[in-house]
């Protein structure tokens, strides 16, 4: 169904697509030939989806090692004449900011889009940011779709704009756009006349002598007038105004629909004019001037920071327009998270001076039941090899170090070890930070054994420089690489250790232990975490290692979800374990110290394995002191 919608030549057909899928359809319609990405919520499914059809369409698509490399590669393709895009999450743009701040100076050739997924509310991210500030900083236009249908059309338009201004165009796709479905009208698929050719030009040598980069910077400033005039005339700006309204609402992206719904719900459409912006950057000054000139006040609806509110206020001040600009930063400022229906309603109340009753106000009595809502923390899956690694690690740490240990964590499923029962993560910052933090703690001579805990994909993305630093500066800590061969958290995309590329072709398998040996790590040991005795021995040896430099452990076993899915597609049944009721004493080791979700507490406090959830890893059978856990049927 999805594949058919992506490939369809039926112009005008309505199909259901998510924002991420619509972006891919947009890329196909625009004749994109080169795409790169690094997995990250909410944008992972862009490349996942493209890979369903990339071979058929002759589009090159890769999982790059990180967002910086992804942006550089897509830029080169564009410079060589191929329409391209790169997709990443908001914090990915932090990584890619360095090349972006140069490619905006050199410019590109064929149309190029930088798709940035944003996660206001930080539902599946290390932090919340407002990436719109990076559009102002890089002086590149940033388009913002209000839903999947617009995401597709904006992609196509954005590629054309990019080609005209010879600069990459940013496309912000917030979580609500990326992970929402909408009926989308298919457009025509362009078959570009591609000629791959690199035309050498001095402008690509940005870091040249004699102030060249400053001259290029000046050139970028001069281009802003052209960019502004294009955005000013964008078909995606939408003004609804009858002339009798006293007030207005301005928004870009998902907030626009919320605002319009609120006005409809309270029958206030004749009181508020509305303006949907095509782009948070740059602002269409003339349109804003015309819209606001005869209004008393406008409400700006947006996520996270009052970015639009402040910038619109500045535009109106410059134009000498006396219209008040309210928004997130007004009244009771709330400068985090997503904008909600209730927030918009309360702004309308404040500006309109009329009390509005919310749909939920009639049932405030339910508040007392909220105490029943126990939390549901994220956890490692049934059969996850990380759990086995942490079980062994906790046991050895308790025996050898007690609380004299510092655990520097990283970004991935293994970071759930910060919670009970393991509590083996003390710090969790950004991609690759475990290594740098461990270097710092070790060199600060803290009175504790220092650990860096990082997954395979994060190690390749950002961990290697920290390890090189540790060897070079003789920082003594234990680096634990949890290698499950995939990027687990985002849906089991292959990682370089698996030796399979994005399109499924075999490629060189890159092993973290080989990298460690090559850069001079003196203690390197690989073990299988599903063998607990082997894992414990490895931790003991690594903790005993006194230097020089770090000790490195590689704990390798494939991701349990990957294993389960593979078995399911092959029609194979995984081996299961079961608990012998007469032997189980209800001691709680498997439930409370190990915590596999497949093991639940049944009657009489005895443990019970859910046959549907068990993946057959067999680790619980090794930890049970009463040998009550056995293979099914044995």
């Amino acid at each position, binding site marked *: *169904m999805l594949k058919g919608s992506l490939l369809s030549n039926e112009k005008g057909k*309505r*199909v*259901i697509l998510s924002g991420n899928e619509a972006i891919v359809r947009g890329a196909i319609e625009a004749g994109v030939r080169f795409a790169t990405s690094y997995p990250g*919520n909410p944008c*992972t499914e862009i490349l996942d989806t493209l890979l369903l059809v990339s071979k058929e369409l002759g589009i090159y698509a890769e999982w790059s090692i990180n967002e910086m490399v992804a942006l550089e590669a897509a830029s080169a393709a564009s410079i060589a004449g191929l329409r391209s895009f790169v997709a990443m999450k908001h914090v990915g743009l932090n990584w890619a900011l360095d090349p972006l701040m140069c490619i905006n100076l050199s410019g590109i050739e064929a149309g190029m889009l930088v798709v940035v997924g944003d996660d206001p509310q930080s*539902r*599946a991210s290390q932090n919340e940011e407002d990436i719109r500030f990076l559009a102002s900083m890089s002086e590149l236009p940033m388009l913002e779709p209000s*839903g999947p249908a617009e995401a597709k059309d904006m992609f196509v338009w954005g590629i054309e704009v990019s080609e005209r201004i010879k600069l990459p165009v940013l496309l912000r796709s917030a979580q*609500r756009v990326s*992970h*929402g*479905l*909408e*009926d989308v009208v298919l457009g025509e698929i362009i078959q570009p006349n591609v000629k791959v050719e690199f035309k050498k030009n001095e402008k690509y040598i940005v870091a040249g002598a004699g102030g060249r980069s400053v001259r290029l910077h000046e050139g970028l400033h001069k281009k802003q007038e052209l960019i502004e005039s294009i955005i000013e005339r964008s078909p995606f700006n939408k003004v609804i105004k009858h002339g009798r309204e006293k007030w207005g609402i301005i928004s870009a992206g*998902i907030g626009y*629909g*919320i605002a*319009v*719904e609120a006005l*409809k*719900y309270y029958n206030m459409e004749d009181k508020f004019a509305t303006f949907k912006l095509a782009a948070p950057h740059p602002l269409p000054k003339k349109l804003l001037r015309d819209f606001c000139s005869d209004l008393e006040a406008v409400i700006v609806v947006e996520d996270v920071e009052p970015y639009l509110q402040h910038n619109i206020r500045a535009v109106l001040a410059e134009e000498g327009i006396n219209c008040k600009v309210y928004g997130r930063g007004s009244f009771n400022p709330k400068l985090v998270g997503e904008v*909600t*229906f*209730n927030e918009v309603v309360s702004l309308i109340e404040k500006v309109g001076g009329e009390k509005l009753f*919310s*749909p*939920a106000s*009639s*049932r405030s*009595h*339910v508040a007392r*039941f*909220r105490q*029943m*809502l*126990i*939390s*549901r*923390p*994220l*956890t490692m*899956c049934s059969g996850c090899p990380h759990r086995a690694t942490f079980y062994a690690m906790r046991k050895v740490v308790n025996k050898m170090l007690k609380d004299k240990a510092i655990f520097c964590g990283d970004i991935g499923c293994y970071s*759930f070890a910060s*919670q*009970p*029962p393991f509590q083996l993560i003390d710090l969790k910052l950004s991609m690759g930070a475990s290594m740098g933090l461990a270097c710092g703690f070790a060199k600060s001579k803290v009175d504790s054994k220092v650990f860096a805990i990082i997954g395979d994909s994060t190690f390749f993305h950002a961990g290697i420089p920290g390890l090189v630093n540790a060897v070079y500066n003789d920082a003594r800590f234990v680096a634990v690489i949890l290698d499950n061969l995939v990027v*687990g*958290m*985002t*849906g089991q995309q292959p990682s370089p250790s698996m030796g399979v590329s994005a399109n499924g072709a075999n490629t060189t398998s890159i092993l973290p232990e080989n990298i460690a040996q090559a850069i001079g790590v003196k203690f390197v040991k690989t073990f299988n975490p599903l063998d607990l005795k082997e894992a414990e021995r490895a931790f003991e040896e690594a903790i005993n290692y006194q230097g020089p430099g770090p000790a490195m452990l590689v704990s390798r076993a494939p991701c349990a*979800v990957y294993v389960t899915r593979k078995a399911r597609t092959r029609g194979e049944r995984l081996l299961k374990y079961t608990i012998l009721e007469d032997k189980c004493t209800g001691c*709680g080791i498997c*439930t*409370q110290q190990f*915590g596999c*979700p497949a*093991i*639940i*507490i049944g009657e009489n406090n005895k443990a019970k394995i859910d046959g549907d959830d068990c993946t057959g890893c067999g680790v619980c059978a090794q930890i049970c002191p009463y040998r009550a856990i056995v293979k099914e049927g044995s």
Partner: protein
Amino acid sequence: MDKVWNIIIAGVGGQGIVTVARILAESALASGYKVKTTDIVGGAQRGGAVLSHVRFGDYVYSSIIPDGLADIVVGIEPLEALRTSLQYLKQDGIVVFNDRPVYPLTVQLKQQKYPPLVDIKSALLTITNKVFVVNASEIASSVGSRLATGSVLLGFMSAVSDIPIPKHNFYATIEGMFAEKVAKINIRAFEAGFSKGLEVSGQLK
């Protein structure tokens, strides 16, 4: 405002919430409606709470259902049905939920207690008397796979509500979305849920 149908699918990561929402969205489009949905995945990993808002009608402005405006909540997990209904379900709306709990890790670790099903039901009864508890996982297993639990609930919901989507549009969608074997199981699951729903609503009348 023309009628917009507001339905929320709630459950735990790995239960197929996003897939159920997609079946509903595709079936609504096939029935001639405009559709918008939004997912809230508590993390990209299993074990967290997951929500999908599905809205369809002649025109839909926003994908996000405002608090207290959901016509129907479909819970693949009891506690998540309660969590979602307390925030979103309108007075006298419909809530259909599976009776099989997925215990949070903290319950296994004995740090929190999972509320008894009867308490969940009586809390919901203060919002609406249209509360339906279904042994959906059991039914799904009996027709081929527990993974089809969502389809059982979708069938049940379709029988006890007035949603304007004919059954054959659900079946065509399921056939289009899955491989033959999986499609068959899901259609059987939908059918079983639908019959159960008719039976229960017949008893009410």
